[in-house]
């Protein structure tokens, strides 16, 4: 079986043979960035299609079914439409800020991809503080949204941005605490290390109840951080037209849209890395021969299937939430965080610490 490490090593030696090590480094940086972007864009296209189909099916509809077989080309048609539309900025908006905001938001969410481990040995930036970096970056996404809201010179945009700020600042806490729970269980901050620590079973199985609670809290909090329904107060179309991107049109709106889905993909990747073992196949933490055979059989499924399978599983969960629950009010939203999720995740963290100290986890 071809390993991704073989491919990267092959490219590395190939580049070294034609240019100096410095240029090799630069070219590799660009190549890895472009590859990650392309993979992510393909994922986003699949996600947008999936979102519409899931939404349709859950509301007893068919979803898109006009453009191409089963509406498969609908997303492409939409992208072409967005590309052809004029990017318009309002007269009294702060032009520079207004035009920078979408790009900034997109950059921030792409930066969170750097320390992610895509496959064995395939990490763009293999650092020992990977998870810390991701949490730091993901809370910066609100800056792009605030910029967009403020510079639009529109009350709806401003209100949406403010709500988004309040939401991200509060939900960052419980998301962070549940990440800390997983980090405490794994004993490392590096994404590769966390995945390696799940070689004999995913944390959601090995970590028992605290890991399950942390996983649930993380999914809820990160859905809120992505501004997705039922926490989509930042766009709340019935109250705020479209929230912070009310004034955007054409591809600038498209970038915000893309950004939302990339955020979702990032969150799903982090959740699967921390709790579901990233690219690690499904292993059970027992020593019986039959379990060992089972673990061995699981190894035959390629790691990229595991990676994307888990990612889309988590994404499906988030879509499932979105199309089931009604939107919360802003006070309910903050109450949910400060009165329920935060206390629960603090207690859960203590509980996890107890389990780790007593070696109760498998």
């Amino acid at each position, binding site marked *: 079986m071809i390993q991704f490490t073989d491919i990267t090593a092959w490219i590395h030696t190939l580049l070294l043979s034609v240019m100096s090590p410095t240029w090799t480094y630069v070219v590799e940086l660009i190549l890895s960035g472009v590859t990650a972007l392309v993979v992510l864009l393909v994922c986003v296209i699949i996600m947008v299609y999936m979102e519409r189909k*899931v939404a349709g*099916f*859950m*509301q*007893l*509809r*068919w979803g898109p*079914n006009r453009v191409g077989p089963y509406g498969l080309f609908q997303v492409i048609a939409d992208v072409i439409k967005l590309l052809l539309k004029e990017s318009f900025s309002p007269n009294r908006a702060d032009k520079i800020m207004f035009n920078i905001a979408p790009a900034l938001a997109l950059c921030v969410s792409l930066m969170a991809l750097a320390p992610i481990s895509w496959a064995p040995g395939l990490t763009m930036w293999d650092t020992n503080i990977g998870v810390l970096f991701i949490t730091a970056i993901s809370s910066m996404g609100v800056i792009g949204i605030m910029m967009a809201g403020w510079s639009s010179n529109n009350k709806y945009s401003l209100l949406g941005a403010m709500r988004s700020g309040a939401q991200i600042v509060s939900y960052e806490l419980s998301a962070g605490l549940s990440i800390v729970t997983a980090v405490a269980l794994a004993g490392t901050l590096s994404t590769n290390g966390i995945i390696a620590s799940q070689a004999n079973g995913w944390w959601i199985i090995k970590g028992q109840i605290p890991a399950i609670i942390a996983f649930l809290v993380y999914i809820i909090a990160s859905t809120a951080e992505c501004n997705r329904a039922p926490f989509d107060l930042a766009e709340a179309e019935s109250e705020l037209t479209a929230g912070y991107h009310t004034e955007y049109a054409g591809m600038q709106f498209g970038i915000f849209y893309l950004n939302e889905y990339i955020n979702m993909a990032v969150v799903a990747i982090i959740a699967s890395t921390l709790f579901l073992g990233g690219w690690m196949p499904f292993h059970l933490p027992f020593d019986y021969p039959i379990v060992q055979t089972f673990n061995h059989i699981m190894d035959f499924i390629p790691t990229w299937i595991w990676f994307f399978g888990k990612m889309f599983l988590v994404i499906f969960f988030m879509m*499932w*939430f979105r*199309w*089931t*629950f009604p939107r919360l009010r802003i006070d309910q939203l903050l109450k949910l965080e400060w009165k*329920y999720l935060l206390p*629960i995740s603090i207690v859960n963290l203590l509980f996890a610490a107890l389990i780790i100290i007593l070696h109760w986890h498998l």
Partner: protein
Amino acid sequence: MRALFNYIKEVVYAFVSLAKGLLLTLRYFVTIKKVNITEEYPDNRTTTISVKERFYGEVVLTHDENNEHKCTACTLCQIACPNNSIQIISKQVETEDGKKKRVLDKWIYHLDMCTFCYQCIDACPQDAIEMKNSFELSVYDRSKLVRQLNRPGSKLKEKPTVKEQQS
């Protein structure tokens, strides 16, 4: 202690009720082939389309096989209509025994002003009109929406006289 217990109860209850909702949508998602109620309209307009009987599409004056209707031109429906979308035009005719009688000449229905409220049908003492569930009502010219509902040559269905009823 009690407060803590209530707090935990609340959380558990919330999770249970959320799970119920999630299970419902999951059931829809999995069994979409069976539970889907969407009509793929322009594709199935000649085949499988089904519009519910109770759908209020347009008002029709019912005619039987002898081209007879039951409208006595009493104008109660015209009075009942909140939008003035009914015009009953009647005429005087002379019956065989020399009596003058008022009969329906034109039953004019302004579909463009009708809100499908069903009040005319409720008001009609003769059950002469009813609501059809047709829905492809759009036309290019507004004047086509003003219709005469009584068919040409149709006449009032004679009620069986008291004697006939007894026999």
